[in-house]
């Protein structure tokens, strides 16, 4: 085990160049959480089903528990800690999740928000069905998703500069 040489990795995380020395088998989620101490992303299932570990890597939503840190060599990563503006202003999604009660225990939230972030970049005006399909790689045990959908709709409206219309019950 120790006979295998560690490898040097360099990547950009939230706009800053970071580097580290890792075993090839080091999972990216562990590199981010334990080497870089960015603990926003979580581990929920270990098998790539829950999406709590979702990061935004080179314009894709990626489950970082199913990727080795060495695979991310040279890539550009955004974590939940890098989503708010440099002056601290919350991203529309962060605001939307709070306004629409889109979270409870908060454990899935960083992964959910990062996934929604990529979804809204690819599809700025998603329908409810498109949102549900678009976040189907992220499990939430608390909210039942309904308010997460509203949170994403809220954010979409804010990003598009339109009025958010709450769907009638």
């Amino acid at each position, binding site marked *: *085990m120790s006979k295998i040489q560690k490898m040097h990795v360099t990547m950009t995380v939230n706009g800053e160049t970071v580097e580290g020395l890792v075993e090839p*088998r080091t999972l990216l989620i562990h590199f981010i959480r334990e080497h870089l101490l960015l603990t926003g992303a979580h581990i929920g299932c270990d098998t790539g089903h829950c999406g709590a570990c979702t990061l935004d890597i080179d314009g894709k939503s990626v489950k970082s528990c199913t990727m080795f840190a060495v695979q991310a060599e040279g890539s550009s990563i955004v974590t939940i800690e890098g989503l708010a503006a440099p002056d601290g202003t919350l991203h529309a999604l962060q605001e939307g999740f709070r306004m629409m009660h889109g979270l409870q225990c908060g454990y899935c939230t960083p992964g959910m928000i990062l996934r929604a972030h990529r979804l809204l970049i690819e599809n700025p005006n998603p329908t409810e069905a498109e949102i549900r399909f678009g976040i*189907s790689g992220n499990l939430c045990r608390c909210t039942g998703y309904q308010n997460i959908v509203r949170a994403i709709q809220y954010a979409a409206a804010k990003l598009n500069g339109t009025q958010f219309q709450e769907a009638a019950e």
Partner: protein
Amino acid sequence: MIPGAFTYHRPKSIDEAAALLTSLGEEARPLAGGHSLIPMMKLRMATPEHLVDLAGIPELKGVCQNGGDIIIGAMTTQAELIASELLAAQVPILRETSLVIADPQIRYCGTLGGNVANGDPGNDMPAVMMTLDARYTIVGEKGRRVIPSREFYQGAYYTALEPGEFLVSVTIPALPDGHGFAYEKMKRKVGDYATAAAAVVLTKKDGVIATCALALTNVGDTALFAEEAAQILIGSRLDAASLARAAAAAEAIAAPATDGRGTAAYRTSIAGVMVARAVRRAFERA
């Protein structure tokens, strides 16, 4: 869940990868999207000593047309298949299938090559490739060779790939204009493998089915090419009787295991239902 230790290689060309995989032998595994292999490694059900990551090889990516053939690089992701306008126009069944594979995050990473070549009977693309009569271009110690998809699968996780060989690309022969297609997949939830699924590509002439290819997912050790079921449909106007006979013929070749998705009897019956629904939809589209 922590994988065992391994040495990581990241070749820059197909030749370099082939040389590595050949010299490292059975202790090495090619790494594509990793979403099948890495969970297996975390469960320590797979413990390769070397991983040869194919992500750094540009030649393995992309979709192009060569004459009538469509050629797709093995490292092309499902998200790229979904986004490809060329595929949407020429082989739309690939988009329909990709959209029911796994979930959004996994589709960004999961590759066509990984899906067709790792031999998991739960993967969706092998059945689709069989209906399309796709050919797989493989590289290894002896150079390149081409294997028809319908001859590639030999058992669960057991394919025509020799040690050291890996998939380079998939070639799909031209489909007739106006063909009908469908991929019907019954699953418990997003992210699940099929309880049973059916792929169909057919053409119609004067309201009669002229050609038809059918294959089944996850109801046997490999994807199953349902030749007899297809033959029953050819020449029919899709009357209820021939559709029922075709579904029964498909059920006859299905041999699923009992698992969390249901009993063998249930999954066999679902294979028939998926065939009937896929054929009906393809017929309407043709």
